[in-house]
């Protein structure tokens, strides 16, 4: 045995069957999207809290597909926010500084909440820009 990879363990994913959970997630997304249209209220689903099998995840990913927008956020590790083929439905994946996934959500919103800068931050930015300009001039 030359390396650890030679140990003959081949874990098969128990994925022959869909649990039916993925379908439920999809219909919840549809509900949230409807609510977004009606009231403008955003919603999200914590994917980690659901016992989705690998097959469920693949199925869900295939169904949601890919949209036009991908946002990368560098904040204490990388976060990737991808629009799905359904406008307003986002896949949000947060990683830590070591690139481990720490949380995963489906967010149903015009723009994922975390993308929008906070008022205080804009205030700070404005002040900082003003002072920077002063220094230049």
């Amino acid at each position, binding site marked *: 045995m030359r390396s650890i990879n030679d140990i*003959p*363990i*081949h*874990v*098969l*994913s*128990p*994925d022959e*069957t869909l*649990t039916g959970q993925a379908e439920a997630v999809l219909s919840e997304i549809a509900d949230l999207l409807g609510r977004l249209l009606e009231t403008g209220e955003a*919603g*999200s*689903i*914590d994917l*980690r*809290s659901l*016992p989705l*099998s690998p097959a469920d995840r693949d199925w869900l990913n295939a169904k949601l597909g890919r949209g036009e927008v991908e946002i990368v*956020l560098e*904040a*204490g*590790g990388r*976060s990737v926010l991808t629009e799905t083929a359904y406008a307003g439905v986002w896949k949000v994946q*947060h990683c*830590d*500084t*070591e690139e*481990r996934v*720490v*949380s995963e*959500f489906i*967010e149903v919103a015009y723009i994922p*909440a*975390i993308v929008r800068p*906070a008022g*205080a*931050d804009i205030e700070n930015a404005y002040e900082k820009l003003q002072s920077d300009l002063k220094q230049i001039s």
Partner: protein
Amino acid sequence: MDKEETLLDHMEREGMSRRTFLKYCASLASLMALPPSAAAAMAEALGKAKRPSVIWLPFQECTGCTESITRSHTPSVEGLIFDMISLDYQETLMAAAGHQSEEALQTAMKENFGKYVLIVDGSVATGLDGAYSCIAGRSNLDLLKEAARGAAAIIALGSCAAFGGIPKANPNPTGAVAVSDIIKDKPIVNISGCPPIPVVITGVLAHYLTFGTLPELDGLGRPKAFYGETIHDRCYRRPFYDQGKFAKTFDDEGARKGWCLFELGCKGPVTYNACATTKWNDSTSFPIESGHGCIGCSEPDFWDAGGFYKALSTPANPLKYVGAAAAIGVAAGAAVSVANRASKNAAKAAHEKTTLSDIEK
């Protein structure tokens, strides 16, 4: 760090962005099984939170719990939370030693009386008036009673503090008991596990900081957010169990294919913990993923609950009395049989040939 400083102040000083903080809160909410919408509220509350004083007392323990927490992660949300508390006494970690450290303890207790959080790891020895385990000449029992008096809440960290753990296992020579066996008048959170999962303590602290209360607990005093479901319920090998595919030995085809370890003694179905979702070693894996069944370490008296390698459905030695029982059963039956025969013979002997007059009364 100033005790009056809020987390938000601290964050800004450290140059941490608001988005980073929001991201932590989202992850924390997910961990604590709170709805994603709670993240924003959490972020706001946490931002305004003040640092509580924490006193950490180690009793009959192996330091595994401390190791688990301190070695868990690179600075992340846990690190942030630990920055948020004022850890005023922790023997293993503190720089002070000897009298100095004892003074630190007394000071912390006095200054924050009624407000500090008390963390205990290790069981409490009660044998010989607690003489089996002493710190600076005082028994754990004594120390616990004193420290508990001024505590706002107690966190029993690890299975020893929560349930007595391995020191309490048969034959329990030190008379080890759980914190909750001694302290009855304070809110106690049991964070069981041998060792417990680091993010669980972070989650409990975050909850305490955010909402000012302890999280919802199960019947054994454990936070439901983490101990609400069994390992089995969230195990990725669960479908194999449902399909009836079981590894029979640790090196057979089934084991290689990653089938269910139920028959190899996995205690997943009776063990409430979050290992299957949070995992261990920087989220690398957890015991079942590494090919070994769960030993049920977060449950009371797991050490004495039948062998680790004996399937849950298998009784220990059920045919123990069967031989003797069979003998007694046959003997009882035979005795009745003899008596019955005698009774029938007596009836036959008492038989008088019926004549016509015998059928009229």
